[in-house]
């Protein structure tokens, strides 16, 4: 049914989707060559929000680059904080106190929950359902309040520091988090699954739409829920463990179908897994300092360092080349959505406009992260 009717070249027209379009959630522009409602060719055009983060890193000290990391993927900022501090800590050989590692995991996972909730909300909005958006925001708001109490900000966190975190969490945060998890657990089956996941309209719109094969994922370097929705079990938290993730018992949801529904289900399951991780981390939380003694100006030895973390949209990698100076010689940031978006053109070919947009929504794009 999604196979397009073959058309003559001169009967197509160009539709500019974006840079200002409700479905692109930012300033992505997709140049669509359309035949009626069928997409004949889709070319994402980037660069509308390029801010040269990598270049900025080269004339700042290591610590001064911290705020930049939060401004790439603003929905999962703490994972980016984490990836960057991890790389620098590897470079400078800094040991992180255990409590700090636990706090990092708890906050990153909370942040992952907000990211997935917001994706869910925005995806439903793409599909035309408005009420779920506000139900998800209601929950997300609770997490933001919790994180605001410890980090001081709500969206663009700058909370991690080399050798630990900015400040400790308190008992209010711990009980608040436990209550929140209880609340989300009770709301998930009804407001999320009964209202939306099992809805026939949603199932009809997502099943067998936007099929991405394993080969395509490999070809474009796709990661994250997109890859796991195509049946590949790959998650940096398990495959190349970092921080204290090996100490927790959690699963990596994998679905083989490779369609939008599979990616949807991967994310919904990840919400539950994140809650499991947070609960375990809160149970095991050790006492101790949250920040190691680190010199104010870092000068790591010359060399080439790499660290990767699993962000909500896939693996975020950070490659750091140092020449013994107080700022990086080169910092290369690998952001997941850039790779995930690049397969959009190939997969969207021959799709209906509405399906292509549903597929785009299922990729969970965050534009500032693509453009950096």
């Amino acid at each position, binding site marked *: 049914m999604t196979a397009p009717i073959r058309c003559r070249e001169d009967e197509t027209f160009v539709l500019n989707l974006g840079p200002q379009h409700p479905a692109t959630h930012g300033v992505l522009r997709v140049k669509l060559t359309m035949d009626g409602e069928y997409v004949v060719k889709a070319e994402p055009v980037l660069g509308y929000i390029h801010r040269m983060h990598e270049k900025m890193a080269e004339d700042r000290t290591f610590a001064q680059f911290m705020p930049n990391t939060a401004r790439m993927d603003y929905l999962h900022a703490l994972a980016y904080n984490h990836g960057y501090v991890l790389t620098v800590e590897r470079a400078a050989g800094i040991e992180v106190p255990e409590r700090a590692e636990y706090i990092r995991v708890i906050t990153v996972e909370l942040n992952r929950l907000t990211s997935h909730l917001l994706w869910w909300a925005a995806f439903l909005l793409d599909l035309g359902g408005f009420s779920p958006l506000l139900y998800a925001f209601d929950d997300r708001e609770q997490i933001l309040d919790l994180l605001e109490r410890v980090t001081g900000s709500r969206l663009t966190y700058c909370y991690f520091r080399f050798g630990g975190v900015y400040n400790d969490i308190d008992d209010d945060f711990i009980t608040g988090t436990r209550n929140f998890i209880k609340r989300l657990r009770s709301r998930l089956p009804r407001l999320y699954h009964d209202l939306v996941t099992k809805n026939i309209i949603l199932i009809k719109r997502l099943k067998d739409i936007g099929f991405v094969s394993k080969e395509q994922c490999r070809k474009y370097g796709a990661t994250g829920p997109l890859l796991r929705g195509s049946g590949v079990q790959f998650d940096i938290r398990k495959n190349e463990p970092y921080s204290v993730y090996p100490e927790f018992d959690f699963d990596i949801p994998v679905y083989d179908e490779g369609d939008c529904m599979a990616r949807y289900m991967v994310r919904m399951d990840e919400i539950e897994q994140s809650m499991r991780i947070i609960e375990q981390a809160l149970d095991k939380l050790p006492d101790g300092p949250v920040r190691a003694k680190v010199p104010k100006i870092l000068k790591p030895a010359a060399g080439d360092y790499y660290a990767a973390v699993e962000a909500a949209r896939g693996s975020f990698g950070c490659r750091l080349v140092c020449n013994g100076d107080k700022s990086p010689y080169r910092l290369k940031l690998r952001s997941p959505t850039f790779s995930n978006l690049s397969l959009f053109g190939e997969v969207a070919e021959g799709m209906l*406009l509405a399906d292509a*947009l549903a597929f785009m929504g299922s990729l969970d794009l965050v534009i500032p992260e693509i453009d950096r």
Partner: protein
Amino acid sequence: MDTSIWRPILYLIGFMAFAGVNAAWLGWAERKGAAHIQRRNGPKEVGPFGLWQPLADGIKLMTKQLLIPSGTDDILFRIAPILAMIPALTSMVVIPFSGNIQARSIDMSVLLIFALASIGMFAILLGGWASGNKYAVISAARVVSQSIAYEIPMLITVITIVMITGSTNLQDIALAQQGGFWHWNIFRLEGGHFVYMWIAFLIYFICSVAETNRAPFDMAEAESELVAGYMTEYGSMGFGLFMMGEYLNIVVGACMTTILFLGGWGSPFGFLPGIWWFLIKIYILIFTIIWIRWTYPRTQIYKLLNLSWKILIPFSLVNLLVTAAFIKVF
């Protein structure tokens, strides 16, 4: 029938007022309903419960400049919003609000209303086409295919009603259902029609939602796909008229459902029939339509056509046959 000159004038004023009030305050009701479903407050600043919000919105829309972008078909672009309002207003003429509140009782009033509803579809087509915007053109094309697909099952179910009541006059159809809910077409005991008429009602209701371009069938406006569809280039009162036209279409749709299936102005228990029952029924229907809109995600144009051609049309045809059989047998 009274033929004095006052009657048409009074009715004209009355219906215009009814239509205007509905078009304005349904917007308020929609926002309020949506807000509470989403556990927000909705409009609340302008007047008590935000009741004067439509006036504020109206003033705002009217004071804005009517922008006609270059590259549009000027005349059609101006006509389209008016055309969206007029058929819905005209339909009011034949709708019997109660036994004696009706401007004109026309024998073919059912057909007249469906003919006018199709003209409403043309308004969207013209607006989309004249805008010269690609999103608007796609939206216009969608509206046409959707309209055709949904008019068929709708008319087939209406034929069953016509067969049962034996009239195409709305007044007669409503009169045939007086005296308690067991006389309404949806639950009609007499002749055993209640066995299957609720299916016909569902088909008709789904179709009327689709005909008025309401979510989950709002293919034409699909804001996350087509920006604002056929309204993309409209601002100021052009946009306002389209909105009002949409709400009026909902009112007409609800009136039709009430008259065809829910006994018109008849009371459910057989006493105190009158216009209040009619109003209660249409507002319950309208609220249901709002409620549906804020619950479901949008369908996709092909799924929507599938629903019509694969489910609604076969069901309505079977329904027609069953009706004929019932009428013949009982």
